[in-house]
């Protein structure tokens, strides 16, 4: 998103620890009001990045701009940003109300005004008002999440950062809170930057996803685009199950190509990416046709997944239950349309 005036601009940000480089000069623009998710496996540099952004660590090189102000040179407590920590970092020696009021207390806001604001935030986060005088220890996991959010909102930051705050919760609660967070983003209109290792979480909530790998951004784009057109096999795999076929000079080993497919792939070399749900079993007509035998069959509720041994390698196919045909050991043909195939050129592949 090359917005005319991004709220946050990161340029050539680098962080080196002794002899290890955690961030290799990354660039990023974030638009005002955007919900950006930064996703990557552990050790990809996402935590390092967020710690630089909030000021817990100093960058080795590069700059961070908040609108027209360069913020990497000012200390964490002077930055107009706030973070919800992975551990939530709620003060155990303070009540729910005192936790929410904390940033206001630091600014010298009068107790009555502080309390008014804290109660408003309890309403906003859909917590009962009598939680104001509750102990943190008396709150459930989900309630603690909401208190941490309320406290961050009391700070009224320009940008709200999240460091995997949902990772310690069970699946159902996480799903509920993901939706609430998305809803809160819409209602407050604030800029959210959310770090997670869970792509699923990122896809549910964010406007754009930045995928990190080994201290660099691999791809920054809306979820659908990353899913449909990954720039590298790493991104493709990170976005869920995927089949890779080797493409060399316009031909795919072990596959038959229709004239349309031949024209589309003419002269290209690299990797073909095909999602399991794009492949069809025993197709009437297809641009790319493969054959093989069923090696395994898995029931996934309304869908069935097959693992198929083929001359082109091991393939994964996912079809609707009513389209399931073959059993284990049966020979099958499978295929897909050229529109469902994404080619990653060799150069990009090598760069990744």
């Amino acid at each position, binding site marked *: 998103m090359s917005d005319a005036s991004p709220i946050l601009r990161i340029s050539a940000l680098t962080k080196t620890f002794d002899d290890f480089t955690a961030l290799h000069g990354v660039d990023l623009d974030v638009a005002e009001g955007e919900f950006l998710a930064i996703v990557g496996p552990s050790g990809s540099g996402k935590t390092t990045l967020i710690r630089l952004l*909030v000021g817990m660590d100093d960058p080795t090189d590069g700059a961070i701009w908040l609108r027209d102000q360069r913020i990497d040179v000012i200390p*964490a*407590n002077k930055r107009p940003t*706030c*973070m919800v*920590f992975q551990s939530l970092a709620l003060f155990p*020696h303070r009540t729910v109300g005192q936790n929410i009021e904390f*940033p206001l207390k630091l*600014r010298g806001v009068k107790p009555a005004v502080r309390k008014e604001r804290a109660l408003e935030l309890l309403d906003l986060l859909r917590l009962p008002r009598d939680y104001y005088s509750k102990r943190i220890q008396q709150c459930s996991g989900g309630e603690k999440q909401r208190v941490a959010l309320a406290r961050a909102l009391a700070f009224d930051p320009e940008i709200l950062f999240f460091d995997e705050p949902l990772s310690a919760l069970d699946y159902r609660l996480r799903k509920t809170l993901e939706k609430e967070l998305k809803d809160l983003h819409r209602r407050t209109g604030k800029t959210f930057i959310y770090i997670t290792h869970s792509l699923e979480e990122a896809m549910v909530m964010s406007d754009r996803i930045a995928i990190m790998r080994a201290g660099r951004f691999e791809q920054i784009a809306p979820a659908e685009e990353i899913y449909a057109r990954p720039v590298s096999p790493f991104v493709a795999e990170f976005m869920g199950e995927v089949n890779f076929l080797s493409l060399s000079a316009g031909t795919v080993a072990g596959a038959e190509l229709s004239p349309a497919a031949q024209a589309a792939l003419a002269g290209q070399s690299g990797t073909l990416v095909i999602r399991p749900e794009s492949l069809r079993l025993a197709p009437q007509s297809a641009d790319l046709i493969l054959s093989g035998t069923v090696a395994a069959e898995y029931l996934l509720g309304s869908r069935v997944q097959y693992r198929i041994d083929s001359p082109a390698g091991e393939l994964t196919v996912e079809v609707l239950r009513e389209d399931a045909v073959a059993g284990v050991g049966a020979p099958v043909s499978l295929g897909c349309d050229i529109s469902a195939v994404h080619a990653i050129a060799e150069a990009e592949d090598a760069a990744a």
Partner: protein
Amino acid sequence: MKTSRLASAALLAYGILILAFLYLPLVSVGLASVSKARYLSFPIRKYNTDWYGEALASDTVQNLLWISLKVAGIVTVSSMVVGFLGALAFARYSWRFRKPFQKLILLPIFFPQTVLGLALLMWINALGIVPSWKTAIIAHLVWIAPIATLIVSIRAFSFDPALEEAARDMGATQWQVLREVTIPLLMPGVVSAGLFAFLLSWGNFPLSLFTTGADSTLPEWLFAKMISGYSPLVPTVGMLTVAGSAALVALGLILAWALKRLRPTT
């Protein structure tokens, strides 16, 4: 698992035996303190509490109490401060010499106190300082401050560094982080370190023996009177010493209870 009647009877007897072993000597000193006799002897023929009146009226005993109290009081406060700062260095902040510091700070605890006392006396003499209750404070601190540091460190290890970072992120200055987060969270540890410091200093004999010079603390006086010139005041003063410790433990328990009522942590 069900215990048979025999086993539970044996357990009960064992428990009583242990308690008797621990507390009977103390009870007998208590009984001796209310004996009318001039010499330590059992069974006690006649009881009275005259020795308590005499002890409290005696200048010697008053002086002993005052010196012991001064030493223990100053050691307590100093240990709390040193323990708090030491625990931050020990457990919270990573710095270059943290590992050696963690090991060296514990070393005095492993020295036999008599050796430590002797070593300190030699240094006090070498520096030309006249030993008194003031030098005993230093000696006590050498041994007690590391223990206080350890006690506060246990607390410091168990607290999430993100709490301080979060406070800072929300706009707190270094001083505000200390006042709003670090000090309140470490306070229970600091209070128990203070309690231990007082008890260890109040009852300390070997370090005091070497370093008080002409002054005398309660334990020193008790020992001196036992080896030469027994006085019927000995068990009485002994019981007064125990009462001092007991009062402090009671105070500590009340304080812990009050802290828990005011704001339950963890």
